[in-house]
């Protein structure tokens, strides 16, 4: 299976830099400490006004910092834009492999690497310093796995969308920034989205960004019903179909214009 091999290769490629990444993890943890400090400072003496206690928020931020490496910090445009710039995309689209799977399997390899060499070490740092939540009910672990998987698929799709847009715009830096900003802003990276001000807090739960960060974290903390996985599932289906359709459009465009 070619996609499995691509996935493995991508995993191994990242292994070369594992020591550098481990140092980077320390910085990632410091970001987490800063956000936790903000929440602890904010909630001091006000815990009864808030749906979350300071400890809740500590767990929340710690979990977010871990999951960001699985569904937040993906390769900009999944590097599709490079293929568009140097013309290699025409070749890649012509291969007897599915282009969507060809691109995404490499990113999955990277994310699996991130799981072992970024998320888990960062989680370990938090559990040794500020503490890390441990789900109390067995089914949570099952739902958590599905939710994280869906979160990864949603985020990969969002990044694929940004990357493939290069076929029409050539330059995707800005699209990546907008996507990333929405992902962390409306995905609940710093603020749980139910705490956002009025109009936002009623829209954001139904956007894909919540499915990438907020829902898996809340399921992990056992603070939300597992039914939200259905919202994630809808986005998984919608985004994947849309991207497959868009890939065909891109192929069509390149065939006519010759790249």
């Amino acid at each position, binding site marked *: 299976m070619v996609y499995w091999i691509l996935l493995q290769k991508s995993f191994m490629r990242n292994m*070369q*830099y*594992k*020591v*550098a990444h481990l*140092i980077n993890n320390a910085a990632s943890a410091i970001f987490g400490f800063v956000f936790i400090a903000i929440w602890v400072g904010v909630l001091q003496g006000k815990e009864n006004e808030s749906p979350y206690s300071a400890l809740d928020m500590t767990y929340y931020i710690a979990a977010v910092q871990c999951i960001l490496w699985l569904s937040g910090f993906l390769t900009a445009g999944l590097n599709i834009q490079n293929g568009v710039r140097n013309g290699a995309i025409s070749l890649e689209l012509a291969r007897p492999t599915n282009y969507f799977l060809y691109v995404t399997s490499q990113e999955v390899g990277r994310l699996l690497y991130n799981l072992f060499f970024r998320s888990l070490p960062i989680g370990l740092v938090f559990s040794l310093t500020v503490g890390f939540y441990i789900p109390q009910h067995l089914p949570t672990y099952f739902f958590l796995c599905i939710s994280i998987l869906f979160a990864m698929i949603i985020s990969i799709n969002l990044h694929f969308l940004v990357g493939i847009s290069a076929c029409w715009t050539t330059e995707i830096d800005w699209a990546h920034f907008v996507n990333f900003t929405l992902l962390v802003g409306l995905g609940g990276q710093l603020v749980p989205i139910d705490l956002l001000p009025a109009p936002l807090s009623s829209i954001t739960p139904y956007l894909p960004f919540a499915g990438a960060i907020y829902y898996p974290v809340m399921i992990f903390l056992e603070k939300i019903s597992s039914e939200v996985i259905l919202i994630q599932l809808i986005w998984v289906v919608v985004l994947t179909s849309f991207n497959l359709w868009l890939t065909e459009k891109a192929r069509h465009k390149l065939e006519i214009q010759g790249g």
Partner: protein
Amino acid sequence: MIQAQQLNKHFKIYETKKGFIGSFASLLSTKHHVVKAVDDISFSVEEGEFVGYIGPNGAGKSTTIKMLSGILHLTSGEIKVGGLSPQKKRKEVAKKIGIVFGQRTQLWWDLPLRDSFDILKEMYKVPDEKYRQFLKLYDDMLQIGKFMDTPVRKLSLGQRMRGDLAAAMIHNPDILFLDEPTIGLDVNAKTSIRAFLKELNQNEKKTILLTTHDMDDIELLCSRVIVINHGQIVLDGTLEDLRKNIGLPSVMEIQYRVKPTTTDIRLEGIERMTWEDEKLVIDYDRSLLSSPLLLQKVTQWGEPVDIQMKEPDIEQVIQKIY
């Protein structure tokens, strides 16, 4: 103009470990071995000389150029360029020399050539009047006027090299260090750059030190050749001296339709014959055996499909000096 006395440059090669922490760990480790990149070299170059500085890859050419221009410090020895030590007076020496690295440009990638020149004019504090003369003169010599307003990234390799050469001359230095200025260029570009360098040396009396892998550069330009190998000078003399050692090394490649049976004719001047299936490669010395004569012989041996003349590898040429 250039004096180098008993130059030594030793590098400590630490046992490197892979990765990030590894690079720190190898900082602290004391396990290392010493590589003598330049091993007790002395030479001096007079005003107006055109010196070819040649040797195989890793022989110490670049290290020497870097020491002459003040980029690298010495392990021991002494250098004077235009009467000053490039190690102690790097900035003053920089004003007296022009440097071109063939492998990488020193022009501003996204800017038109003219803007790069404007910036360098300010950097070297060239007076307006001198600058105008420079532009006029170098447009005549290198025809850079045609692409003065094109961004450097859009120039062809040959145009870019002409731009780089002009940029190195903007402050009218007396000494030029050229590190493989003809690398990767096509025949036309090489010819025009050689003509320019020749003019620079003969009319402007510039002192030039050139490293190259191209034997033609040496034969057409250099009045003197210094050959370096394993960090040591193995030959320092005129082009004639080099000839006496190596002759006029040439290579001919003949592709036969069928591999001939009788080729064992002993001709004076043939140094080596190697077969690769139906292809015969002959290393010979042009000063002993003329190419037309050899051509005549090889067609007698069999029916050639294709015949090519090739430039000899400088690595092979150097081997012969021993």
